[in-house]
C-alpha cells in the first residue's frame, strides 16, 4: 500500500495558477510567500545589524580611537542587540516555520492564513519604527535590556527610549500572532496518521518555541506598558526618585529591580526562543547527511520541552549581582545548572546520530556540525555563569559577550545558515553552489572564532562591556585588533553567501523533488512547491515517511519499535483524539469525504491584515511624533494615534466580516 500520495500521477487542479505582481504580494496569505517575505526582510535586518557591529569594531580596533563618539556607540550596541534578536534571528526562524512546517505536516496552509499575513506586516511595522529612529537621530541608546532607571525621563529625556519601547511592543504583537498560528497549525492540521511522535523534529522545535513565545511575551508586554506609563503618564513603577519642579529630590517608592524581574522572566525564555529553532534545524539535517534516523528521537523531543520548561525558572541568574541574597542565588544557580542536562542530551544525541553513519559533508552538514561544536563552547561558558561567584567576576565583562555570541552566532546563526543551504533547493528548485558554500562555511568558521574567542581573554583581563573606548595602558589593544579583524572576515563571508544566492538563483543546477534524499514530507513534492502544496493529503505511517517508502525497514527500525512509539505519556496514546490510527488510510478517506478534498480549496487573498498592521504602526508611531493633538474628554491625544486606532478597527472588522475562503 502506498504511504505517500504520488502527486505527479494526478491531473493538475485548476487552482495552480500563481498570481504575480506587487498587489498579489501585499495581499498574499500563502504561507510560502509569507515565509519568503519573512526571510528576505530578516536577512536585510541581519545585514543592518552586522553593519552596526562592524562600525563598533572599527571604533574598538585601537585604544583611544575616535571613529564614533560615545553617544553614537551607545546607539550602535543597543540597536545591534535589538536588531539581531528581534529583527534578524526570530523572523529568520519564523521564515522557516512558515515555509517548512505546513509542508512537513502535510497541510495546504497554516490554520489562520490572514493572521499569518498580519504577523508579517506587523513585524515589518515594528522593524520600521525601531530603525526610523536613525533618521530622527534618536536611535535607542540604553542597551537592549533597557535597565531602569536609565530609561527614565530624568536620564533619557529624548525620544530614543520611546522608539525602542513602541517598536518592541509592536514586534511583540507580531511574534505572538505568529506563534498562536504555528501552535494551532501543528496541533490541529497534521496529516492523517501523523501522531505527535511521528512529526519531524523541526515541528517539535516550532511547537515548543511557539509555546515559549506565547507564555513569555506577556511579561515584556506588561514591562513595556509600565515603562510607557512611566514615560507618558507620570507614574514611577521603575524609578525610586524623581526631581520636582524646584529641582528637589522626591522619593516615589518605585523599584528598578521590578523591571529586571519582568524583563528577564521574558528575557531568559527568549534565549531559548532564539536557539531551539536552530537545534530543531540541525536535528533535521544531521540524520539526512549521516544516512541514519535521528538517534533518540523521543528523548530529543522531551529535551526540547524540558529546556523550555526549565527556561521559565532561571531568570534570576541574570541578576546575581543585584544582591537578592544567598537563597535566591543558590536556587537559581541550581535550576540553571539543571538546564545543562537536557542540552547535553541533545548534543550527545547529535553525536550518536553521526556515530557509525555514512557522513556526507555538504555545506548544510558543515554548518550543522559547526553548531554542535561551537554551541558546546558557549554552553560550557554558560554553565560557568550559573555559579554566582563566577558570574559576579564575569558580569558586564567581555567574557559574557564571548559567551552569548558563541550560543547566538555559533548556535542560532550557524543553524539558520545550515537551513538556508538545506532548504534553498526546495524554495527555488535550484541547487546552491557547493564550492562557494564550503568557502563560505570555512570563512565564517574562521572569522567567527577569530572575532569571538579572544573576547574570553579580554573579559578575564577585565575589559568591560559597552565602553566605547579604552586606554593604551590597559594592554587590551592587541586582542581588540584581532577581534576586529575577525569581525571583518565574518562580514566578508556574508558577501560570499549573497553571491552564492544570486548566482544559484540565476544558474543553479535543477534540484528535483528530493536532492538530499531527505525523509520528511516537504521532499515528496516538487521544488518549488505548487501553490496548493499537496495534490492529495498524504497518509503517514512512519516517522521518516520517505525513507520508509523507499527503504522499508532497512534503516534499522522494526515494527515493534514503531508500535511502541505510538505510546506516549503514562501509557496514554499521544496524538489524534478522534482516531483510527490503526488504519490511517481509511481515516484519510473519511477526512476527504467529509472535507470534500477532491476540490482543492485555498484561502482568498486579503488586504485587511495589511490595513490592520498599518493601523497598529500609526497608533504606535503617533505616540512618538505626538503633534498635532486633539482633545478627547479631559485628555488630549495625538491625532496620528487616533487615526491609527481607527484604521486598525477598520482592518479588524473588515477581516472578521469578509468570508475566510
Amino acid at each position, binding site marked *: 500500500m502506498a504511504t505517500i500520495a504520488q502527486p505527479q500521477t494526478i491531473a493538475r487542479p485548476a487552482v495552480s495558477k500563481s498570481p504575480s505582481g506587487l498587489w498579489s504580494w501585499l495581499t498574499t496569505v500563502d504561507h510560502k510567500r509569507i515565509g519568503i517575505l519573512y526571510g528576505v526582510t530578516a536577512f536585510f535586518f541581519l545585514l543592518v545589524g552586522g553593519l552596526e557591529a562592524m562600525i563598533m569594531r572599527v571604533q574598538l580596533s585601537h585604544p583611544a580611537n575616535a571613529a564614533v563618539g560615545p553617544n553614537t556607540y551607545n546607539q550602535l550596541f543597543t540597536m545591534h542587540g535589538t536588531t539581531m534578536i528581534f529583527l534578524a534571528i526570530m523572523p529568520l526562524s519564523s521564515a522557516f516555520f512558515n515555509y517548512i512546517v505546513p509542508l512537513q505536516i502535510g497541510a495546504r496552509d497554516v*490554520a*489562520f492564513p490572514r493572521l499569518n499575513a498580519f504577523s508579517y506586516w506587523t513585524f515589518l511595522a515594528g522593524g520600521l519604527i525601531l530603525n526610523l529612529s536613525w533618521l530622527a537621530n534618536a536611535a535607542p541608546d540604553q542597551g537592549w535590556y533597557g535597565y531602569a532607571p536609565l530609561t527614565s525621563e530624568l536620564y533619557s529625556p529624548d525620544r530614543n527610549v520611546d522608539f525602542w519601547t513602541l517598536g518592541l511592543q509592536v514586534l511583540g504583537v507580531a511574534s505572538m500572532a505568529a506563534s498562536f498560528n504555528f501552535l*494551532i497549525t501543528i496541533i*490541529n492540521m497534521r496529516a492523517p496518521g501523523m501522531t505527535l511522535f511521528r512529526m519531524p523534529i523541526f515541528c517539535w522545535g516550532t511547537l515548543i518555541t511557539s509555546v515559549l513565545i506565547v507564555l513569555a511575551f506577556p*511579561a515584556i508586554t506588561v514591562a513595556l506598558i509600565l515603562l510607557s506609563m512611566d514615560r507618558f503618564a*507620570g507614574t*514611577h513603577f521603575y524609578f525610586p526618585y524623581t526631581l520636582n519642579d524646584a529641582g528637589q529630590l522626591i522619593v516615589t517608592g518605585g523599584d528598578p529591580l521590578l523591571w529586571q524581574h519582568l524583563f528577564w522572566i521574558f528575557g531568559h525564555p527568549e534565549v531559548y526562543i532564539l536557539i531551539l529553532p536552530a537545534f530543531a534545524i540541525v536535528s533535521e539535517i544531521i540524520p539526512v547527511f549521516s544516512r541514519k534516523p535521528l538517534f533518540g528521537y523521543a528523548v530529543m523531543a522531551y529535551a526540547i520541552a524540558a529546556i523550555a520548561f526549565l527556561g521559565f525558572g532561571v531568570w534570576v541568574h541574570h541578576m546575581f549581582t543585584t544582591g537578592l541574597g544567598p537563597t535566591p542565588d543558590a536556587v537559581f544557580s541550581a535550576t540553571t545548572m539543571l538546564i545543562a542536562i537536557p542540552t547535553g542530551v541533545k548534543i550527545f544525541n547529535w553525536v550518536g546520530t553521526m556515530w557509525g553513519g555514512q557522513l556526507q559533508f555538504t555545506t548544510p552538514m558543515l554548518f550543522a556540525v559547526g553548531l554542535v561544536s561551537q554551541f558546546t563552547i558557549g554552553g560550557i561558558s554558560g554553565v560557568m555563569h550559573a555559579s554566582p561567584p563566577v558570574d559576579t567576576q564575569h558580569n558586564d565583562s567581555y567574557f559574557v559577550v564571548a559567551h552569548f555570541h558563541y550560543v547566538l552566532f555559533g548556535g542560532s546563526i550557524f543553524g539558520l545558515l545550515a537551513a538556508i543551504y538545506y532548504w534553498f533547493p526546495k524554495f527555488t528548485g535550484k541547487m546552491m553552489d557547493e564550492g562557494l558554500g564550503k568557502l563560505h562555511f570555512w570563512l565564517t568558521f574562521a572569522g567567527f572564532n577569530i572575532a569571538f574567542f579572544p573576547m574570553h581573554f579580554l573579559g578575564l583581563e577585565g575589559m568591560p562591556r559597552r565602553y566605547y573606548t579604552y586606554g593604551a595602558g590597559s594592554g587590551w589593544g592587541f586582542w581588540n585588533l584581532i577581534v576586529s579583524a575577525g569581525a571583518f572576515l565574518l562580514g566578508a563571508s556574508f558577501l560570499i553567501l549573497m553571491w552564492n544566492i544570486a548566482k544559484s538563483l540565476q544558474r543553479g543546477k535543477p534540484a528535483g523533488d528530493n536532492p538530499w534524499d531527505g525523509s520528511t514530507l516537504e521532499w515528496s513534492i516538487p521544488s518549488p512547491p505548487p501553490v496548493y502544496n499537496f495534490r492529495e493529503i498524504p497518509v503517514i505511517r512512519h516517522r521518516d515517511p520517505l525513507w520508509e517508502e523507499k527503504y522499508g525497514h532497512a534503516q534499522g527500525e522494526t515494527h515493534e519499535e514503531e508500535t511502541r512509539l505510538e505510546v506516549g505519556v503514562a501509557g496514554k496514546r499521544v496524538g489524534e483524539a478522534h482516531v483510527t490510527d490503526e488504519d490511517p488510510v481509511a481515516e484519510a478517506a473519511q477526512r476527504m469525504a467529509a472535507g*470534500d478534498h477532491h476540490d482543492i480549496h485555498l484561502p482568498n487573498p486579503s488586504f485587511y491584515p495589511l490595513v490592520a498592521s498599518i493601523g497598529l504602526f500609526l497608533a504606535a508611531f503617533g505616540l512618538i511624533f505626538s503633534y498635532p493633538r486633539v482633545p478627547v474628554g479631559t485628555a488630549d491625544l495625538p491625532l496620528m494615534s487616533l487615526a491609527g486606532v481607527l484604521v486598525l478597527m477598520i482592518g479588524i472588522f473588515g477581516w472578521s466580516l469578509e468570508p475566510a475562503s
Partner: protein
Amino acid sequence: MATTAHDVEHAGGIGAGTAHGHAEHPPTSTGLDHRKLLMWAFLASDCMFFASLIATYVIYRNHSQQLGLGPFPNEVLDIPYTSISAAVLLFSSLTMVLALAAIQRNDVRGLRVWLGATSVLGIIFLGGQYFEFSEFYQVEGLSLRSNMFGASFFTLTGLHGTHVAIGVIWLLSLLFVSLRGGISQKDSLNVEIAGLYWHFVDIVWIVIFTLVYLIPYDEGEVTEGAEEAMVRLWQAVPFV
C-alpha cells in the same frame, strides 16, 4: 468498522459544537475547531499578562503606607460599592451561558435577548468603574502620579476594564450581526468563543477584586526612617 463522513463530522462535535455545517473545513487532528483552540491558547497567554500585572500590584500594595505617601487604600476603597459592580459582572457570565444555550437550540430571539443583557451588564460594570475612578481622582486626590498605590491600582483595574470594554464591543458586534440575520445554530461556535473570553475576564476580576479590595492592607503607619534611608541611598548615586 465502516465510518461515514457524517459520523466523522459528529466525532468532534460533542461539547465542541464544531464541525456542524462547516463542510468547507476538513476535520482537524484533534476534532476541535482551530478558532476554539486559538482562543484557549490566547487565554493561556492572557493569564501570563494578568499574572505579571498582579505581581506588580502585590509588590507595591503596601509601599505607599510604608513611605507615608497618601492617599492610602484603606481611606479610598469603597468595598460595598465595588461589590455590587463585581456582582453585576459575575451575573453577566450567567446571561452569556444563556445566550450560547439559546443559539445551540437555534433560538435566535433568545440569543439576541441574552447577548443584549450581557452587553448591558458589561456596560454597567464599566460605568461603575468610570464613576469609581472619577470619585478617587476628584474627591480623594488619587492619581497615577500621586503614589505607587495610585499607579498600580489604576493600571491593574484599568487594563482589566479595557478587556471588559473589548468584550462588550465584541458582544455588540455579534448582536449586530445577529440582528441582520447572520447567526444561526451552525454558527454557535462564534458565540461560544466570545463566551470563553467573557468568562475568562470575569474570573480574572474575582482574583483582582479579592486582592485589591478584600485582603486588608497595612495601616498607614510610616516605617521609621524609610524615606530618609531611601533619600540617603539615592543621593549616593553620582548622577543625582
